[in-house]
């Protein structure tokens, strides 16, 4: 039997290349209306009055007065209204939808809407903590009392915009049965479905959600589409016609959720041998005006506080602050990129402050199998980080280059990051919140249909899941069908997030396929259903954040080489080498694609992608001002994969989607540090910031 990792052509590639794949904006229906959102033009205050024009036949205004049930988007923390209440909490908050058949007329009508506000003073500082978590390991207090040296640093990270090339979009229509159907660019069909049920107060069978081809998501289409769907649900109820809501690029960049800006203070107690005994960490995230799922982002960031290292004593505190900025939310990495930037820079800064060789210092602290995790769980499975480091450093000629660049004044640098990513939901999320269910349906034709709610948004599920199932069933892959999920057909296998799909959903499918194989009867309709069960050894206490935060971890090493222009401080990325342990690649080329794309976003997060909010308004609100890398910015990249099969993953697979983004920022920033011989404590490390560092030290 051939190795599962051996790549096959992606099953959905041809239709995308030919421009035939249907994204939501490509879908039209007879009698379809358009929707446009009217938003607040103030940051904080009260709506005093809304003057609406009289509407011609066929045009509708939908606002909170039309809401039949609850005006709140069902995400983890339910505080975001889908139409603004009297109180405006951020710029661009949706106030109403204008719906109608002709955009020009809608434009005219929108101009006639007069909204009067009483402005209030907005808050942008970290003052109003709405989520506070903390946990500890060992006895941090006493190691700090005994420390031979205490080192303290603060790190800051900025916004990052998902910048999927396809803007957010959703189409909703009433069916004759009275049911309402949604087709959208979404990551989580059941999140959308549940949010609508909640918003309309209707029954489950009245809502159907179908995924259109998704033009990139990266977390940005995790929770936000639920808001659009709730608005459309109310609109369709009123208009009783299909309605399409597609965001303009600027609108998307100005108001949809982005990566949380953070401030992370770290304190290390170092003993007389130069070893870190304990770390005290304080993580602050800007949650924006509504908390949404920020608490989950916070916990992932906090759990990453020990990086890829083992520290025996830890005290970690974290807060999500409510501000009057645009709400932040899910983005590939989910809190981990912020923390890994901080801890990797910190480890280097500690080594420098204690006059140690940073490489040797970091190697001494690496996490090993059997060690306690940050949350006092256990690294049960083999950790092959040292192998990854060895092969990556060899390929990148890390040691030779680091030596050469450190000594000279060439403005060249090479930086290396070590990192891990917990696969699946944090803590007991999988077993308590998600309870994934998958189904295999063998048809009379002996074709096998995969029924899961997992969404292919480019990461290759349309190929990897059929490949898994076909391989186990020992049937040709074309005998396996995997349509984009439709909640009327597929069970809730959970959202497509948290690097969980291959490991958890794929794992369940593998079990279902094995069972089906055992009972296979040609020419007969057969259905196999599987439900997630938490491995019995996993224990997690939500309140104290103690135990196994994740069932498994993927690991990685990134090495980035840069050259900095000494007159302009522009950074040129010269070379990238990465090594990963994702358990087992279900398809090697797909993993390499994830790796290339992930590290490109990660590196760009570190040195390029700048988005700031000024008095509550995003300043870089289009693709001209918010710069993501072009083909010319990215060098040839090399990726090494080392197998380290995880017993409970399908063929040993763990998560890979987010891992590849997490280490990019620290790797590029460590390289820049070496080049300019200054400490970097903020990302993005733009030329403007580097110039400041050069001038002021």
């Amino acid at each position, binding site marked *: 039997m051939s190795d599962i990792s051996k790549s096959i052509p992606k099953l959905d590639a041809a239709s995308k290349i030919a421009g035939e794949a249907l994204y939501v904006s490509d879908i039209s229906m007879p009698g379809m209306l358009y929707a*446009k959102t009217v938003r607040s033009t103030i940051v904080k205050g009260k709506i005093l009055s809304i003057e609406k024009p009289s509407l011609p036949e066929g045009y509708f205004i939908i606002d909170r007065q039309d809401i039949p049930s609850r005006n709140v988007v069902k995400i983890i923390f339910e505080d975001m209204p889908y139409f603004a209440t009297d109180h405006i909490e951020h710029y661009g908050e949706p106030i109403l939808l204008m719906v109608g058949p002709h955009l020009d007329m809608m434009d005219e009508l929108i101009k006639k809407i007069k909204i009067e506000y009483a402005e209030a003073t907005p808050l942008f500082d970290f003052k109003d903590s709405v989520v506070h978590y903390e946990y500890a390991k060992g006895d941090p207090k006493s190691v700090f009392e005994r420390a031979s040296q205490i080192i303290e640093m603060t790190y800051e990270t900025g916004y990052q915009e998902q910048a999927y090339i396809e803007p957010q979009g959703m189409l909703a229509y009433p069916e004759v049965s009275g049911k309402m159907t949604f087709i959208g660019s979404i990551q989580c069909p059941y999140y959308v479905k549940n949010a609508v049920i909640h918003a309309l107060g209707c029954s489950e069978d009245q809502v159907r959600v179908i995924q259109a081809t998704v033009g990139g998501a990266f977390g940005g289409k995790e929770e936000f589409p639920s808001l659009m769907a709730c608005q459309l649900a109310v609109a369709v109820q009123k208009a009783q016609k299909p309605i399409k809501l597609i965001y303009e690029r600027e609108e998307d960049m100005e108001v949809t959720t982005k990566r949380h800006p953070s401030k992370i203070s770290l304190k290390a107690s170092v003993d007389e041998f130069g070893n870190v005994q304990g770390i005290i960490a304080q993580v602050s995230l800007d949650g924006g005006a509504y908390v949404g799922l920020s608490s989950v982002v916070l916990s992932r960031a906090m759990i990453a506080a020990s990086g890829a290292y083992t520290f025996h004593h830890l005290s970690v505190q974290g807060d999500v602050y409510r501000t009057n900025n645009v709400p932040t939310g899910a983005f590939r990495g989910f809190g981990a990129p912020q923390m890994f930037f901080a801890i990797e820079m910190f480890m280097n800064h500690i080594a420098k402050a204690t006059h140690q060789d940073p490489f040797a210092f970091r190697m001494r602290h690496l996490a090993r199998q059997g060690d306690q995790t940050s949350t006092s769980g256990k690294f049960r499975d083999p950790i092959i980080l040292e192998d990854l480091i060895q092969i990556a450093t060899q390929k990148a000629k890390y040691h030779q280059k680091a030596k050469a660049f450190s000594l000279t004044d060439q403005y060249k640098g090479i930086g290396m990051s070590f990192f891990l990513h917990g696969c699946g939901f944090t803590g007991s999320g999988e077993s308590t919140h998600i309870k994934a269910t998958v189904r295999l349906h063998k048809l009379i034709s002996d074709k096998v249909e995969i029924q899961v709610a997992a969404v292919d948004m480019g990461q290759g599920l349309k190929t990897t899941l059929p490949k898994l199932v076909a391989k186990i069933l020992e049937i040709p892959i074309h005998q396996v069908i995997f349509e984009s999920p439709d909640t009327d057909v597929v069970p809730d296998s959970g959202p497509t997030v948290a690097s969980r799909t291959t490991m958890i959903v794929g794992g369940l499918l593998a079990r279902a396929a094995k069972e089906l194989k055992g009972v296979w009867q040609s020419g007969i309709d057969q259905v196999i259903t599987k439900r997630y069960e938490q491995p019995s050894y996993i224990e997690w206490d939500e309140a104290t954040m103690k135990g196994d935060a994740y069932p498994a971890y993927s690991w990685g090493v990134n090495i980035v080489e840069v050259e900095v222009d000494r007159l302009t401080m522009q950074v040129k990325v010269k070379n990238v080498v990465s090594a990963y342990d994702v358990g087992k690649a279900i398809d090697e080329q797909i993993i390499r694609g994830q790796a290339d794309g992930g590290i490109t976003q990660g590196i760009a997060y570190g040195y390029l992608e*700048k988005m700031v909010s000024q008095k509550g308004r995003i300043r870089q609100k289009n693709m001209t001002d918010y710069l993501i890398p*072009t*083909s010319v910015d990215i060098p040839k990249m090399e990726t090494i994969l080392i197998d380290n099969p995880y017993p409970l993953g399908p063929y040993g697979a763990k998560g890979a989607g987010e891992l590849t983004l997490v280490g990019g920022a620290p790797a590029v920033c460590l390289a820049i540090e070496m080049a300019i011989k200054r400490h970097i404590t903020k990302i993005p490390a733009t*030329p*403007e910031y580097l*110039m400041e560092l050069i001038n002021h030290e």
Partner: protein
Amino acid sequence: MVNHGMPQTLEEALILLKNDEYQIIAGGTDLMVQHRHWAQTLPKIPKPVLFIHHVKELNYLLDTPEYLEIGATTPMDMIMSSPLVPKILQHTIEEIAAPGIRHMATLAGNIANASPAADGLCTLIALSADLVIASLDRKRMIKVEEVISGPKRNKLAKDEMIIAIRIPHQDQSMSEFYKVGGRRADAISKVSLAAVIHVHQSIITNWHLAFGAVGPRVVHDIHTDQRMIGMKIDDVKRQTDAIIAMYEPLITPIDDQRSTAVYRKQVALNLIRRVIINLH
């Protein structure tokens, strides 16, 4: 209301301009972005539009003993790949936008749009280029920089249009365009510097520096440039700091969403240093 105009010849275009007020559109790469509204709606261009991109007689490159003339509708891509064009202008265009834009965009549009960050405009000013401007009644020639009155404002009369750009042949032993954008391709300049210089027997005989994105218009001060004429290379190198100090008051950038005033100023001055380091 006046209809949009689609003249086939220059004369037709000038007649239309004489009779009514139009917004000229060439490649449209500035205008269509500036006036864009929602998808599936018309851009909100406040005036009737005069389309000139397909006026064939304005699409040409012509070399004469004194100057190179570029017709107003010649797309950038064509200019970039012509051997007639000074290297510095080719390099400048290579750094403008991306192929899709360069196939439509024109230098005349780049000039008339009068952005302080316009790269083509910056280099043309350093090259001491002239504009041939025509209305139905007359034709006139002015220096490129004289047509710019402020950020996004030009001095063309309502019935006038640019019909050609003339780049005088001149001695230039060293001509360089340094663009500092936010990334390595397809980015608007944060700062730019076009330098057109000639050194004859170690003496500066021609010296023009034009700076982009460091003031309300492209910065070019002929008086300051003139002070360099006659200097020996060695003296220039020795007096680098003094020369930079001489240009310093001309550089008055602002903070915006792309960069900071402090950075822009320092980099602009550093780029002068780079010119002097590379001077030979």
